[in-house]
C-alpha cells in the first residue's frame, strides 16, 4: 500500500542514471532501510536504470515508499517502451547479454531485492518492479 510519497524521474541519459541513484538513496534513507539494504537497492536501481537506458531506449522510474502490514519498503518501478525482452528466463541468467555489458544487471537486481517482478512484451517495452523491505 503506498504511503502517498511517490516520485518520477525520466531516464534519457547516463546523467539520469546518476539521478536515479540519488533519488533512490534519499528515499531509502527516508524508508529507514539499513546501510547495507540502502546500498543494495541503490545498486539494483543503478543496474535497472542502465538497462532502461541501454536496452529500452530510455523510459522512466517511479519510486515510492510503501507500507504492508506495518512494514515499510521502497518500491521502484522502471518502465520503457523499447524492444522488450523475448525470453525473460534467459535474460535473468547471469552472463546473458545482447549488448556490451556483462549480463549481471537483471539477475543481480533480482538478487539485491526482496520482491521482483518483470513484465515484457516484444515490441511494446519492459516493466520491472522491485521492492526492498525494512
Amino acid at each position: 500500500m503506498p504511503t502517498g510519497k511517490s516520485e518520477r524521474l525520466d531516464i534519457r541519459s547516463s546523467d539520469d542514471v546518476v539521478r536515479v541513484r540519488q533519488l533512490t538513496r534519499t528515499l531509502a534513507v527516508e524508508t529507514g532501510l539499513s546501510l547495507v539494504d540502502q546500498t543494495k537497492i541503490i545498486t539494483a536501481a543503478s543496474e535497472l536504470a542502465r538497462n532502461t537506458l541501454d536496452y529500452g531506449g530510455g523510459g522512466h522510474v517511479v519510486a515510492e515508499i510503501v507500507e504492508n502490514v506495518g512494514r515499510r519498503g521502497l518500491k521502484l518501478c522502471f518502465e520503457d517502451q523499447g524492444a522488450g525482452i523475448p525470453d525473460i528466463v534467459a535474460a535473468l541468467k547471469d552472463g546473458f547479454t545482447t549488448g556490451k555489458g556483462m549480463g549481471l544487471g537483471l539477475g543481480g537486481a533480482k538478487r539485491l531485492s526482496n520482491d521482483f517482478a518483470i513484465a515484457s512484451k516484444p515490441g511494446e517495452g519492459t516493466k520491472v518492479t522491485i521492492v526492498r523491505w525494512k
Partner: protein
Amino acid sequence: MDRIPILKFGDALLVTIQVDMHDRLATALEEDLTKKIVDHSAKGVLIDISALEIVDSFIGRMLDNIAAVSRILDADTVVVGMRPAVAITLVELGLSLSGVKTALNVERGMDLIRVRLDKPETEDADGEE
C-alpha cells in the same frame, strides 16, 4: 566534460574517486589512466573508492578492465577503501573482482605497491654495496 584527477606519486599513480560517476566519466577514467601509465612509466596504480556509496556492474567492470590493462602495461593496480556494505552488495550482485588487488586503506595499498617499487632499488643498492 569533467575528468577524475590522476595524481603522480613517485612511480605510482593515485586516483581518488570522490563523485558519483556517470558511465562516460568512468570510461574516460579508464582511458586517461591507461595513457598516464604509459606516459609516466608508472609501476603502480592506486584507486581509492572510499567515497563511493555503490559499485555497480559498470564500475566493477571498469575496475576489472583497469587492472587487466595495467597488468599488460607492467603496472600493478590496487583498489582501496571499499566500504563493507559495498563489498557485500558487490558479491551478491555476482561480481567478485577476482582480477583486482584490494587493500583496506590507502596506507596498506601503498605498501602493496611499494613492495614492488622497492624491489629493484633494493637489489641495485645491494649490488652497489
